[in-house]
């Protein structure tokens, strides 16, 4: 069997608050294979954001291991983590996180720029990526000229541009109305159908049900890990 894309083993993230130790992640072990679409669900304060930061190589675990794509990230330097993020992970943020002073094209080019890809190639691939989210014609516009849904599509285009192994979406519909949320979720499903691995962080069960597999976090621990159907049954949510 192939190596899992994500392999988290006995991961702890402990913050010191004054004299108290807070276990944001408390002995988490999780494997995600290539091609999966996993929703990580939890209430605010459950530790799901901490887990997302670990998965996204934005942060290192206090103890335990995180092996991403066969590489152990636990002891990497800041710059090594930056490279891992650049090459392996495409981020889709709740607040889109586009740079307001750059055009859409320049925004989508950013990860390619940091990957050291030459200008011509960069431009070609960024335009291609914008094409995939249907915003190719607007490449010279600025983020504030777009609607929220369009901005989120640009951020998806940016995440796709580097052709990453993992799409990591943090509350991707959190700032959108229900119709645009629908569109974005459908687009994520489509990307999954095309073979992309997607990990989506959310607090919303209804959105979690759009995934294939659901991992539920509570008080820093995984309290459920199974298929969407099992999740719906166990937590008695109408699908």
């Amino acid at each position, binding site marked *: 069997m192939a190596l899992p894309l994500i392999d988290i083993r006995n991961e702890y993230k402990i913050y010191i608050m004054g004299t108290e130790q807070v276990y944001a992640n408390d002995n988490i072990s999780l494997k995600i294979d290539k091609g999966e679409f996993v929703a990580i669900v939890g209430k605010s304060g459950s530790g799901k954001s901490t887990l997302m930061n670990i998965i996204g190589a934005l942060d290192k675990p206090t103890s335990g291991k995180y092996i991403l794509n066969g590489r152990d990230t636990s002891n990497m330097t800041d710059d090594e983590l930056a490279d891992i993020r650049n090459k392996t992970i495409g981020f889709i943020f709740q607040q889109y996180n586009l740079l307001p002073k750059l055009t859409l094209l320049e925004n989508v080019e950013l990860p390619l720029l*940091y990957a050291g890809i030459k200008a011509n190639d960069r431009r070609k691939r960024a335009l291609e990526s914008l094409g995939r989210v249907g915003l190719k014609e607007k490449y010279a516009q600025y983020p504030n000229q777009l609607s929220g849904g369009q901005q989120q599509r640009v951020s998806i285009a940016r995440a796709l541009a580097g052709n990453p192994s993992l799409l990591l979406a943090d509350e991707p519909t959190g700032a959108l109305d229900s119709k645009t949320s629908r569109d974005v979720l459908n687009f994520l499903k489509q990307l999954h159908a095309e073979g992309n691995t997607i990990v989506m962080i959310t607090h919303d069960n209804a959105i979690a049900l759009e995934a294939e597999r659901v991992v539920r976090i509570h008080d820093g621990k995984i309290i459920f890990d199974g298929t969407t159907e099992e999740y719906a049954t166990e937590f008695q949510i109408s699908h």
Partner: protein
Amino acid sequence: MLQSFKLAIKAILSNKIRSILTMLGIIIGVAAVIILVSIVSGYMGQMVEQFEEMGVNKITIFCRNMNTRHIDDDDMYKFWDEHPEWLSGLSPTVTLSSAVIKSGSDNLDSTSITGVSEDYLDIQKYVMEEGRNLVYADMAGRSSVCVVGSYVANTFYGSADKAIEDTVKINGKPFSIVGVIETQDEDNFDEGGTDDFIWIPYTVATKMSRNGYINNFVMNSSDVAYTDDITTALKAKLLDVFKNDRLYNVMANSSVIKSLNESIGTLTAMLAGIAGISLLVAGIGVMNIMLVSVTERTREIGIRKALGARQGVIMQQFVIEAAVTSTIGGVFGIVIGALATKSIGAVMGITANPTVWAVLLSFGVSVAIGLIFGYLPAKNAAMLNPIDALRVD
């Protein structure tokens, strides 16, 4: 790299007023360095030039002769004979300060009268306009002849032609004018000016002087390189005669120029240092603005880092932004400093040009300020934790 420059320009343009204020500090600092250094070196340079015009080879001796201890022309000519290669000319200078000079019925009150040798013309680097210079025979024969400056010739005789073979009366004794010297200083062609003088043979002047001693000698070294040897030997000789080094003084123009140049260097460095303080203040301004800029763009930095920007890339972006800001300021400062130098120089009546090294130095300093004072804020930016940075609104 190119990308970082583009970003820097964008960032500077997006905050025009702030950028201009930051640059203003650099502009003032750089302009101050250039103006001060250029004006001072222009002014002092002119002083050096004046000394050089008087002759870098010139060495002068001033003595206070007494009955028991004194030197005379024979001593000095003997000195020359002992070291023939050192000197190219020697002349006693005997100033007759209370002589009554008359041309016909006109009194030449302001005219200076000096007893000199035939070498004096060359030592002073003057040139004859009409007639002849004094010659050795005039000294030996104590001839009643004189050479006059062009002011004397023109004012009292109408022209150099007319002055020749006419006479001037010194203390009632007629001296025939054998030569006229070319005008030295057009600007000061007046009573008591550079061209208002009469030279007579020093042998005659010594007789006419009150105590009959020659107090001053002036000579030309044949090469500036001999200056130290000559002054040392002269001092030794004079000490031998006078036994007291307060009774004489030996002054070499080249040493004066040398020490003048040294003081120019010190003064310039001091002023550049003072002006440099304003550059330091400007640098702190740059740092301040960059710290603000980093704080304002924390979220941007977080996004960039999340997308895979390494520390060095973030660092480079901010350092270049600081360097570009201060470099633009530096260029404006140089232009303003150069223009101001020219106009201040014109007002002061000196030729002041922005010196190359002042321009290069202040340009280099302004770039360096950007790099140095941009470093800390850039380091702060590079070290930001992407999670914390993304959390900021």
